[in-house]
């Protein structure tokens, strides 16, 4: 096979494989069990020391987890379920620290640091035409 054709084939193979992987990434749809696990990790057990209801073996946490399971089965969305618990237990119940007023800083700061770092990194690059 001519060199050129081989190269094109190689690129095509790579793109084809990437497309299959991309499909697997995009087509990921969480199962009810995965949602339960995810939500269980995002809700704090109110009677334990900062552990989630998914991680705590206490009866209280077990009951809350069972409630979440029922809510998922009843067709409630993740947001609805989280709001349900927030309304009953204050915002401290959320372990995923949603970016509401008091926590904007928490979420924004890493991006600010990343931006500052990127700026510094780019500024070490030699300007066009500059010599050593």
């Amino acid at each position, binding site marked *: 096979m001519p060199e050129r054709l081989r190269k094109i084939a190689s690129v095509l193979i790579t793109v084809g494989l990437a497309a299959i992987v991309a499909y697997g990434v995009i087509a*990921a749809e969480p199962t009810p069990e995965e949602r339960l696990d995810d939500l269980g990790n995002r809700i704090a057990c109110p009677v334990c020391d900062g552990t989630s209801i998914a991680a705590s073996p206490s009866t209280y946490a077990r009951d809350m987890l069972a409630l979440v399971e029922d809510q998922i089965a009843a067709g409630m969305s993740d947001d609805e379920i989280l709001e349900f618990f927030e309304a009953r237990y204050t915002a*401290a119940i959320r372990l995923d620290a949603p970016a509401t007023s008091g926590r904007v800083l928490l979420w924004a700061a890493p991006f600010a640091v990343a931006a500052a770092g990127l700026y510094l990194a780019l500024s070490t690059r030699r300007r066009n035409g500059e010599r050593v």
Partner: protein
Amino acid sequence: MNAFLGGVSILAALVGAGWLVLAGYRSTRGREAALDMPIKLYVGGAVMAMVVLQLALLTDDFSLAYVANHSRTTTPFVFKVATAWAALEGSIVLWGLVLAGFTYLVYRSWRRHPDSLGAGALVVMGLVGVFFFGMMATIANPFEICTSAVGSNCLASSPAPWAEAAAVAEGRGPNPLLQNHILMAIHPPMLYLGYVGLTVPFAFAMSALALAQPGIEWAKRTKSWTLAAWMFLTVGIVLGGWWSYEVLGWGGYWAWDPVENASFLPWLLATAYIHSSFVQMRRGMLQAWNFVLVISTFSLTILGTFLTRSGAIASVHSFTQSAVGPALLGMLLVTVVVSFGLFARRSHLVAQSPRLESLSSREGAFLANNLLLTVFAFVVLIGTLFPLLIEAFSGDTIGVGRPFFDQFAVPLSFALLLAMGLGPVMPYRVARPRIVWERVRLPLQISLGVGALLVIRGLRAAWPLLSVVAAVFVISVIGLHLLRLARRSSEKRHERLGPSILRIIRGDPGFWGGQISHIGIALLAIGIAGSAGLSTTATVDLEPGESASLSGYEFAYTSPFTSQDANRSITGATIEVTRHGNPVAIVRPRVNTFAGQGPAVPTPGVVSRASGDLYFTLIAINSAGITMDVWWFPLQWLVWLGGLVAGFGGLWSVVMRRAAEGDKESPAVASA
């Protein structure tokens, strides 16, 4: 007797450390100063303190408050030994011992070529020693006499060795969680070797700044120290996760617990520093940045100690509230202010780095690595401290849990894997796209092929899939690179491939040690993608004779059992695991109740197979039946293997480089 001997040891170490500071300082001024005596006093005192503490524990000397409160006659030998670092005061004794050990080793290598830089580093290490032994002599004295006790609880104690001891017939015993697994004897010393080892590069950096020699010498001199500390820290963290998995029974090994974060923070920055110091040694870049990293890394080890040892955070590692907290906080502030202040004063001496020619180059990959690791460290830091700060300033309690950390950690780790894969194939200075493409084409196809295969076999998951693809990419880049070099060399030398491979990775231990670590991290990433991303779980209620199933495994509850050890009583369930009717294993998850200590702690039952772990934790057990959590963790063993391989890479670099230097008597420059 033990109280007296212990007190003398601590004072000897304190005086030795102080003397070392003064003598070392004289030595940096070019004056004749013998460091031999202070070092002997310091190290001897530190060793004696640990020996006396061990003797007291092993002979059940309950006249010491520490022994009465944390040990018991029935505690098994191994856990008596481990009790020396299982509580606040003792853990500081271990810290002091490890620090003295490192100081001694630095002194030994300095003695061969005495210079002011090394003497200055010994001054800094002595100062740190004065702080820790000063704490032992005052607010965290492990040798206080128990002066008043009720039952096996020691209520009051006195630092005076001549104080009259209350009669305590039996101690309280260690925390149940800390006497439940052999790893408790190994994990803390490993972690301390890592934590405290990072004092060495810090000490040399400080010395270089103070003596106005901010060149490359300090980084070169501490290369092996940093790698060794990093190796211990890596293994210590992995063993900690393993312990958590085998003992706590919550079904995992990493929870972004503040204490885990405290060990992970210095690891992230030490990793960044190892990479950026390569760039400095190779291309002279990032000199100022390396100072920032080393100072920050050391500060984070002190911060970590503060977080875990002060009671600021409730966790299995935080002992009691005490004056140690403010002392460590003070130490942290002094460290940060003095070291960054010194850095600022000397910043005009730090050479202007040569500039980066192109972001698409090996240096660019290193820069990306540093940026990602620094942001990663910042995310972990702010996530850990945010709840504390909010609570301190507004009184509100807010939770920052696993979901927050995961949200950043997963994409950051993915990006790190990509940089790890691209780094080694990028030439220095400028990487032309054509060359890079030629080198990554095959690894890219292999990794995407593996990903596509998983998708075809039914896997639908975003991050686990992407992580596996990136990790396989890293491994195949390294593997193919090695194979190419080996093939070329075996043709030239007419030898077989095996010996060629061995010779190549021996020939450049700095580079190949790093690549071994990269393979370890990639394996770890695959393990995490499987065990965390693709796990399944169920809670089951079973009566004797009943069975249930999860992920293709059936498990039957056959019978309960009880047994009695010297220090604990055990209640458990015998579970028979089968797959398609074929027996797989018999496993016994159980609940332990320790004499003298509070609530029962579970011990999970784990069945490890090549495809993953089946993990059982008893929630409740009575005559009617059991309630049990069951997990299926795919590829769990890769987490442990990957972590240990990563640590081994560090060991390889240090040991093989030393061997190579011994051969040539000239420092080999790593071409990583």
